[in-house]
């Protein structure tokens, strides 16, 4: 077993353990903090995959913005923050069963695929994935349309979120 494999296994265990804590923590702030550690584990996974840009963006976007937004949202809906009642709904066992089935099904499907034991070829020297990414994002015969559409999507989300959460009819104190 090589060092990289050991690091991968540790990261995977850490991430999956944090993931389990996310879905089982009673306290929602704890769940959000466990989500942060799970996402950090995913960032390490990207680093293992030599996707430097993705790893850093994962930390910037998920930990720096999305997790903060989650914590703010929990604070704003604070009534349930220390909810002592059950955090699972009545048919949680069905959800658990379905998750296990999904995992089993994916595992079974993967077993039958020939490309599974493929190993990565080393990154060619002089290959700069960020320049390549820049090229791909702005050259017209590649992904310039998704790039612009992502901008539209995010602005639409901003407008929608601002409107939904705080439109004047919702009894907000603002005029």
């Amino acid at each position, binding site marked *: 077993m090589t060092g990289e494999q050991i690091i991968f296994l540790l990261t995977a265990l850490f991430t999956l353990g944090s993931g389990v804590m996310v879905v089982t923590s009673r306290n929602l702030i704890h769940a959000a903090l466990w989500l942060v550690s799970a996402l950090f584990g995913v960032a390490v996974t990207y680093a293992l995959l030599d996707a430097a840009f993705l790893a850093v963006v994962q930390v910037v976007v998920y930990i720096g913005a999305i997790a903060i937004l989650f914590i703010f949202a929990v604070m704003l809906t604070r009534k349930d923050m220390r909810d002592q009642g059950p955090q699972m709904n009545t048919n949680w066992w069905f959800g658990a069963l379905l998750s296990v089935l999904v995992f089993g099904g994916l595992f079974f499907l993967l077993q039958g695929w020939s490309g599974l034991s493929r190993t990565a070829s080393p990154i060619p020297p002089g290959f700069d994935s960020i320049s390549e990414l820049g090229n791909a994002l702005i050259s017209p015969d590649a992904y310039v349309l998704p790039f612009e559409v992502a901008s539209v999507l995010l602005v639409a989300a*901003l407008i929608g979120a601002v409107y939904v959460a705080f439109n004047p009819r919702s009894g907000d104190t603002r005029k």
Partner: protein
Amino acid sequence: MSPWIYIGLFFIVGLIIPVGAIGFAWFLGPRKSNPIKRTTYECGIETVGDSWVQFKAQYYIFALVFLVFDVETVFLFPWAVRLGQLGLFAVVEGIIFILILLAGLVYTWRKGMLEWA
């Protein structure tokens, strides 16, 4: 060797040093706790009610606007790296991208969401 190993080492050492300092202080410092010491500090006044108070929704709005801008600005980094080689077309694309983004800001502004009160 992968540069990420050094980053990992920085994370590990960056944790070891504060843990060591705090642990050392914990080891040397006195530990005589009593209920008065463990009260919440509010300038000597007794705490009233729960400390997890309801917050102004405005904090959430700013976090929301930040989230959108953060993701979009991060998208611009690969664009900026290649800008020197790609000429005017890429610049125009980036400007369109930024203008769409600024339209969202203007909307939020006009709706009065950026006001504090």
